[in-house]
């Protein structure tokens, strides 16, 4: 049975807001709408549940940190540290997001309609069936996928600040696992020393069709049009780029 609740977050301190969310979830409520959110941290953080929370406004830092199962719809921009070490669930951001989104993320999916800041998906990782996914509709700052150890990172460049390139410098620096797909081409000088562009395989096209399809569904966009342009696929040269750094060999 569907149980809904609306919480007006205006002027409510983050602790009280998050306590109210947890109390609602304990009461078996499975759809929570948060109105007038502005700057409250840790929304959805550490929660194991399969409810949906929709957020009107600008949620604060560390949105969905360690989140385990929730679906979050953000109608606004998100700040820094979204999905920090997130384990499971889905985040759909209908605006931009800040720095370090997907930091050490280990599972679940994040879709951002707009652009993201620096160090997105830094040290994202995967293990067996846990393969995290981040799809960004706009542009990304420098250090995209830095030290990435696993997961799938997709950058579409459909929108964003005109004067900015689709991705900043040091893309994939230190990357040693996972796959990155960037729509269009990326100048070589922007790539970290540890990544290389490789040919797309049939499996890649299928994977892109699946995830870009979900992205297009979330934001009402044209999947075929997005996929019509070629993508650059980036993978690490070496799974252990620093394996010999301290061995004195």
């Amino acid at each position, binding site marked *: 049975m569907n149980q809904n609740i609306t919480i007006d977050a205006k002027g409510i301190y983050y602790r009280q807001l998050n306590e109210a969310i947890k109390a609602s979830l304990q009461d078996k409520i499975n759809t929570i709408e948060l109105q007038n959110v502005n700057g409250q941290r840790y929304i959805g953080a550490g929660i194991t549940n399969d409810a949906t929370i929709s957020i009107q406004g600008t949620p604060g830092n560390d949105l969905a940190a360690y989140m385990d199962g929730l679906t979050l719809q953000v109608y606004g921009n998100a700040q820094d540290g979204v999905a920090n070490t997130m384990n499971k669930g889905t985040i759909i951001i209908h605006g931009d997001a800040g720095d370090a989104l997907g930091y050490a993320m280990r599972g679940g999916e994040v879709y951002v309609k707009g652009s993201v800041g620096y160090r997105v998906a830094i040290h994202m990782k995967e293990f067996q069936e846990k393969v995290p996914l981040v799809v960004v509709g706009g542009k990304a700052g420098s250090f995209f996928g830095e030290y990435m150890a696993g997961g799938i990172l997709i950058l579409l460049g459909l929108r964003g600040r005109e004067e900015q390139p689709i991705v900043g*410098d040091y893309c994939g620096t230190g990357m040693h696992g996972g796959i990155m797909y960037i729509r269009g081409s990326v100048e070589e000088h922007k790539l970290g020393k540890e990544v290389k562009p490789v040919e797309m395989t049939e499996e890649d096209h299928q994977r892109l069709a699946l995830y870009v399809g979900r992205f297009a569904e979330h934001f009402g966009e044209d999947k075929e049009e997005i996929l019509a342009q070629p993508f650059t696929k980036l993978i690490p040269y070496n799974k252990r780029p620093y394996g010999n750094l301290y061995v004195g060999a």
Partner: protein
Amino acid sequence: MSLREGEVRIPSGCAISGIMNRKGYLFSGHDIIQSIALMHDRSNGLGGGFAAYGIYPDYADHYAIHMFYEDSFCREETELFINDHFNVEVGGRIPTRKVSSITEAPIIWRYFVQPKAEKVMEMDLEEDEYVARLVMQINAKFPGSFVVSSGKNMGAFKGVGYPEDIGEFYKLDSYKGYLWTAHGRFPTNTPGWWGGAHPFTLLDWSIVHNGEISSYDANRRYIEMFGYKCTLQTDTEVITYLFDLLLRKQGLPLKAVVTAMAAPLWSNIERLAPEERELVKAIRTVYSPLLVNGPFSIILGSRKGFVALNDRIKLRALVAAEKDDFIYVASEESAIREICSNPDRLWSVAGGEPVIGLLEGVEEL
């Protein structure tokens, strides 16, 4: 019983915020307090402060000297020196109100002064330079006395506490300015003390800073060659002096100053167009000791406007927005939306990319 490591978490990381009206329209301190208060959890109660421009129209031609004194003996000693070098139009306590969380405040005084003309002539200095030197002297030679700010038609208001409480303490809602900056502090390497709170000022420059400057000693050694004295036990004051040296004394354009302080990496310089590449190379070479390294986001305020700047690889947060004649910068977007819910334009600022807000009719800071 006090909590042990692991039993308490203090989420923090300093907060900065700034608001300016480009037309010079004056507005109260209410908004800047609201904005910085929203980021309460970025600071830990060991420092908060504000810089306000346009607040003293009745004494716009006087230097407004804000002072902290540890006791009345310090005040008497320092006042002799001040009276010796300045004509004091009026002096007195800065009005404050009781706030339960603000304790151990020093004696907080202000003076509206003009330099003594014969002394300025005798020393053969510009007025600003004369004032800057005396500020350095007071901070270095009068223990227990500390110049909080020394510009015209501006002032700094700071102390130990959360910034919203400091704003309440100084009654900032009763002042009106066209440019306000604010800081919430989480001191890392140095103790939290009244003089060490931000903003740091010299003449009408003020700096609020989130971050840590790993190049502090290199910057300090360079700046000391030009007569600046770093006395405040914190890395931030050196940035104030860097701007003063390059903008006021050397008259560099702001863009060159930004290039010196947040210089592009050499690999990026190599890819610039030839003419620009040579210029940036020259700046990096001549001013290499002024490269500010480490994570930072700062707002430099002045009577002409402000510039906000991140370190070149963006290790600290910075967001900017515009609405009509207002321009906003803050560590978090929500701190802007708290006082401007629907900006015309809002953007995340890139590393090394300055956000420049100048008063109408002004071309350089």
